[in-house]
């Protein structure tokens, strides 16, 4: 009896530690994935977005909208992906200020590049929002004309 109890306890402890290790590992590998995506996204941002939206995501008065603290960036991922794919020529209004400049389509970027740049934008300049995955971009692209 005593022996089997000890065995059960050891078993439980073992399982628990395995579970913990697995969790830690998943956590850190997710962290690594996020960091890698942000790193790649930063490069795409520099080539495609920085001139208009600026290095700090602050945008330009009346012309190019800021990418900070706005539902356009932090909210619906589908809409956000669509803007990158199709561009935007209708202007947007944020906190009573309107931004008019035309944004070109960036549909020539790969699904991964779009996922990366959006993940970067959603996790930079003080933003914190869920990542955008390559699969999500692929799915939106398939439905976007």
């Amino acid at each position, binding site marked *: 009896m005593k022996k089997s109890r000890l065995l059960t306890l050891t078993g439980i402890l073992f399982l628990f*530690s395995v579970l*913990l290790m697995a*969790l*830690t590992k998943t956590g850190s590998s997710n962290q690594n994935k996020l960091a890698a995506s942000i790193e790649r996204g930063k490069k795409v941002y*520099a*080539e*495609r977005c*920085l*001139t*208009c939206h*600026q*290095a*700090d995501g*602050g945008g*330009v*008065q*009346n*012309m*190019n909208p800021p990418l900070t603290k706005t539902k356009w960036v932090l909210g619906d991922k589908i809409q956000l992906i669509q803007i990158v794919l199709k*561009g935007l*020529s*209708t*202007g947007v209004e944020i906190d009573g200020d309107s931004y*008019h*400049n*035309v*944004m*070109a*389509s960036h549909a*020539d970027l790969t699904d991964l590049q779009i996922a990366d740049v959006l993940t970067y934008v959603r996790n930079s300049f003080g933003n914190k929002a869920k990542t955008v995955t390559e699969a999500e971009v692929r799915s939106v692209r398939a439905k976007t004309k």
Partner: protein
Amino acid sequence: MKQLLLKPVCIAVLLCAFSLIACAGDTTKVATNSKENADDVILKLPDGFTASVFAEGLGHARHIAVNTNGDVYVKLANLKNGKGIYRLRDTNGDGKADDITGFGDIAGTGIAIKNGYLYASTDEEVFRYKLDAANNVANPDKPEKIVTGLLSRHEHEAKAIALDNDGNLYVNIGAYSNACQVADRQKGSPGMKPCPILDSAGGIWQFKADKPNQTYGDGIRYATGLRNVVGLNWNTATNTLFVMQHGRDQLHDLFPDLYDTKQSAELPAECMYELHKGSNCGWPYIYYDEFQHKKILAPEFGGDGKKTAGEDAQDPVVAFPGHLAPNGLLFYTGNKFPEKYKNGAFIAFHGSWNRAPEPQKGYLIAFVPFKDGKPAGDWEIFADNFSGGPELTASGHAKHRPCGLAQGTDGSIYVSDDSKGTIWKITYTGK
């Protein structure tokens, strides 16, 4: 186990540290910016000049005009308390507006006074208000519509205006495009030749100053090949229209193999042109390179940064550094500034954004001396530090952005700022 426990602790500590830094930053910000007040910057001016705040807190104050009695009229890009035009009157002559009144539910950029009328534009129309014998707006709620139906397509939509001495009104109709590509600002999209935009935009249109409800068919395309003009003015010394063009953007973004970020920040020049009926300034096919002193074929049309083109296009009168965004132009005809300023040009540079990732520039008033209707020397900085300091200039987070210029009846000049709506009065007090 240890690792697991340590992680959240580390994160918490980091977060605390970050929020402390953030809070500290915010506090400083509030301390300097809490009042929407131009005391937060001290303008740098040549010896003998002083600047004082004539009015402030007007919001997006675009162009300004001065009436014969000294009243300053300000056009707002966004309505403030439902009004798009503000009249600033200094009743006791202390250099500060003390009687401020708003009227007109029209937002926009352009404003000018001529022959007893105040002209003001929206992004599609131009109106005028009769000024009565007491120098008040006769019917503030009933302006006369002079021009209507102008194109406004989310890019270069501001309709800056000027009037000559022969009953004509000039309106900028900016091109709704950067370089007339098939898809605007899209990498790889070719330029359209001929550029179809030029039929109805990308130039200056001339209308009659007193004829109601004119539109494209009633006016003439006075000058073409101008991407976008915000600063323009009639030069009474030459009896010609001078304009400041906003040069094209994004040479590096669109053609990274031809232009590095530094070249893209410097090119092309922001150009001053003297216009005549039929003038062509070359957009979108060429841009002006102030280092090579040449008109260069735009890369959308086969250019490589070296090939020249635009033999039929005018050369600029003055070329300024790229992307500084000239929004106001004034020829000084007063007698209160030193002799060198007589008939010279003041230009309000709104400040750049398209120089990123290089440091931004601008947010200043430049001066070009003129003699016999031609520039008589290099341009120089007249008033600086609207941004609040070099770091705020470099980051583009300028506190104030010069936009409009007007000459006071007392020989001073006024400058408007469309960031916070400050109006400065600059006077010469030296001997």
